[in-house]
């Protein structure tokens, strides 16, 4: 799993490529979330456009990030979710937890809208 990080209008965008499957990657993500909170960057948009598949332990990583950001006063949202990932979010009811967007700017704006 490759993770590229960028910032836009006060939000952090994590562009993921590959497979989100947990295991050793979980530590990498934990480090990223911890560092972001230390830097007071608590609004995170995870771009799943180039993620080919997610398993349940991969979902656990996203939940862990969501919980951490919410605890820090921010949020974690998802961008460009494939049909396959959408179906796993629906069946696990995680679609009621994660806000999902198809448009990056709209997603970024939603962080400000929530704060206002």
């Amino acid at each position, binding site marked *: 799993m490759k993770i590229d990080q960028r910032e836009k209008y006060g939000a952090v965008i994590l562009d993921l490529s590959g*497979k989100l*499957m*947990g*295991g050793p990657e979980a530590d990498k993500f934990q480090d990223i979330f911890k560092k972001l909170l230390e830097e007071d960057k608590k609004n995170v948009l995870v771009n799943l456009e180039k993620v*080919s*598949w997610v*398993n*349940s*332990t991969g*979902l*656990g*990583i996203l*939940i*862990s990030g*969501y*919980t951490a950001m919410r605890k820090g006063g921010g949020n974690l949202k998802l961008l460009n979710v494939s*049909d*396959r990932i959408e*179906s*796993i979010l629906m*069946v*696990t*009811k*995680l679609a*009621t*937890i994660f806000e999902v967007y198809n448009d990056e700017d709209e997603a970024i704006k939603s962080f400000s809208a929530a704060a206002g």
Partner: protein
Amino acid sequence: MTSKKDRIKQGTHRIDISLPSDMRYLDLINTMFQEIAGGFEFEKDEVEEIAMSALEAVTNAMEHGNQLDPEKNVMITIEASPGTIWFRVSDQGPGFDYSHLDNPLEPENLLKTRGRGVFIMRAFMDSVQFEFVPNRGMAVTLQKMKKQVNRSAEA
């Protein structure tokens, strides 16, 4: 390019593989099940459901059953025919109590980071059966029939 008609295989094919408990093989599992299900008349959404279920079964076997010990293998047997797939995933672990699993949809469980694998298998497959074989390990057997074939069987 091979046409869909050419790719759809006739008869029943059986595939047996054995893998070390290394999650780097999961991509191979995903691709293999997509190819097999896609070649035996399942529609796109069903193909993905089968692949996702296989990933969960193999992840569980590697991680929970075999504790990611590369000396322990995960054995997979697949039997596929047009519109039907059956597969068994076995580990070499001590087994677990599959009758008392938390429901990940309950509000108190929704934000837990683990505990969804079996639920996902049961949601996407027609049948999921667990069996512990003493001195061997845990086996989970999953089955799915293509939607229209299933409806005909029920009639």
